């Protein structure tokens, strides 16, 4: 076994020409995140990103919950790859950390069991008549944002600092478990020193909070929250994390996985209602951003166009710290029409 130091491990990321696959769940939770990424890559950085509206879920959540069998998910993955082949792309860009793990797992499996690859080719041919090639590279959306972090910084007037005091903001970074814990070589810094988010935070002017439960799972699990009775397990894990980070008084959390971002955000509400406790000084909770939303804010995108009003923990306090201007009145307006703000929670302050 090679004795490599993960600290400075760099993953290779292509510079252009990506075939993009979306997250199935994030469209509803944080709908602005993926739009922001495409916007940044295409319009700000001038990259070629191709999307095929015929692509589907990777079925990863079902697979990890023992609902989708291996043969099915292999064929699903093969179908996405066939769309990429048809479009003439070789660099797969994956929005979701679960999907990212799934693509890597299937590719790794096919490498070790070539007969499975043949079976999958067969199954895809029989069901759809399609053929596919294996990708040259698989990168996660946060890899790309990290890769272009300096270009983004150059175009940005925002720094992750408190605009009044000039102090760097204290940021909790949460890297999804399936980003590098399954295949360390596929992540910046491997599983031991994942730098994909901490690197972003630091190069954009913030400091990273190093707290005891930094590596703890957000509690997403898969089967652990599908059934209502099991959710206590999931929420308890999130509680462990919040209790551990709270004494450091972080300004916000950034996560690169749809599941993590959503659970770290929504469970704060749930825990507040269950236990009466919040994890910030004034009862507002700790705002949670995805890496795309953070990049969008850096590039001056409108918070409400980014969909930040969809977050459970309100982001205004963070925007104020960053010195980002926003129109309160636009928060609950859709295409120029007022929409009803959601009901107020009883504990978490909004």
């Amino acid at each position, binding site marked *: 076994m090679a004795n490599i130091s993960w600290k400075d491990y760099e993953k290779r990321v292509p510079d252009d020409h990506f075939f993009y696959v979306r997250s199935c769940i994030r469209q509803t939770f944080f709908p602005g995140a993926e739009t922001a990424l495409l916007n940044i890559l295409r319009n700000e950085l001038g990259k070629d990103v191709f999307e095929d509206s015929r692509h589907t879920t990777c079925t990863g959540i079902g697979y990890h919950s023992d609902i989708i069998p291996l043969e099915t998910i292999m064929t699903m993955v093969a179908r996405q790859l066939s769309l990429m082949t048809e479009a003439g792309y070789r660099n797969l860009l994956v929005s979701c950390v679960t999907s990212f793990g799934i693509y890597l797992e299937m590719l790794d499996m096919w490498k070790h069991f070539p007969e499975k690859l043949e079976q999958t080719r067969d199954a895809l041919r029989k069901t759809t008549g399609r053929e596919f090639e294996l990708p040259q590279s698989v990168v996660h959306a946060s890899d790309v944002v990290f890769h272009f972090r300096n270009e983004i910084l150059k175009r940005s007037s925002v720094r992750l600092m408190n605009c009044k005091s000039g102090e760097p903001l204290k940021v909790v970074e949460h890297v999804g478990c399936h980003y590098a814990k399954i295949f360390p070589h596929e992540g910046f810094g491997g599983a031991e020193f994942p730098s994909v988010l901490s690197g972003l935070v630091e190069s954009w002017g913030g400091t990273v909070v190093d707290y005891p439960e930094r590596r703890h799972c957000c509690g997403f699990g898969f089967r652990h929250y599908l059934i*209502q*009775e*099991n*959710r*206590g*397990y999931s*929420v*308890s894990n999130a*509680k*462990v994390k919040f209790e551990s980070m709270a004494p450091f008084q972080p300004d916000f959390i950034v996560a690169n996985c749809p599941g993590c971002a959503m659970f770290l955000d929504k469970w704060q509400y*749930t*825990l507040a*209602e*269950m*236990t*009466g406790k919040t994890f910030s000084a004034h009862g507002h909770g700790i705002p949670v951003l995805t890496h795309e939303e953070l990049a969008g804010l850096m590039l001056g995108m409108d918070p409400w166009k980014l969909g930040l009003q969809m977050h459970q923990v309100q982001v205004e306090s963070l925007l104020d710290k960053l010195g980002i201007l926003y129109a309160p009145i636009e928060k609950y307006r859709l295409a120029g029409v007022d929409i009803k703000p959601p009901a107020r929670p*009883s*504990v978490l302050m909004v």
Partner: protein
Amino acid sequence: MINFGYTASESRHIDMDERLHPAIEKMLHREPSLKECIACGRCAAVCTAGYFTGMQFYRLNLMAHRGLINEMKQAARACMLCGKCQMTCPKGVNIRHGVLLMSQITDVLDV
């Protein structure tokens, strides 16, 4: 507050940051041989109560040293004070006196 149909659990971690309960310190003072235990398990293998209950003296002693005072007190009640354990102990721990103190800890030793 809302009932979501599930609850948040407390961590199973032993929290060693809590200071040793003063009653435990008193107990160790009253029966210093408790500090000698090396958790070899001889006491538990012969324990009369241990045939039919979860009685393991060395674990009670570990609970004492980890500050798990309530669990320890509860578990000590299984002891029949027969003294078999004491005959096997290589460190000469006065187990019977120890268990007796443990089972009554907050009643006789509290501060």
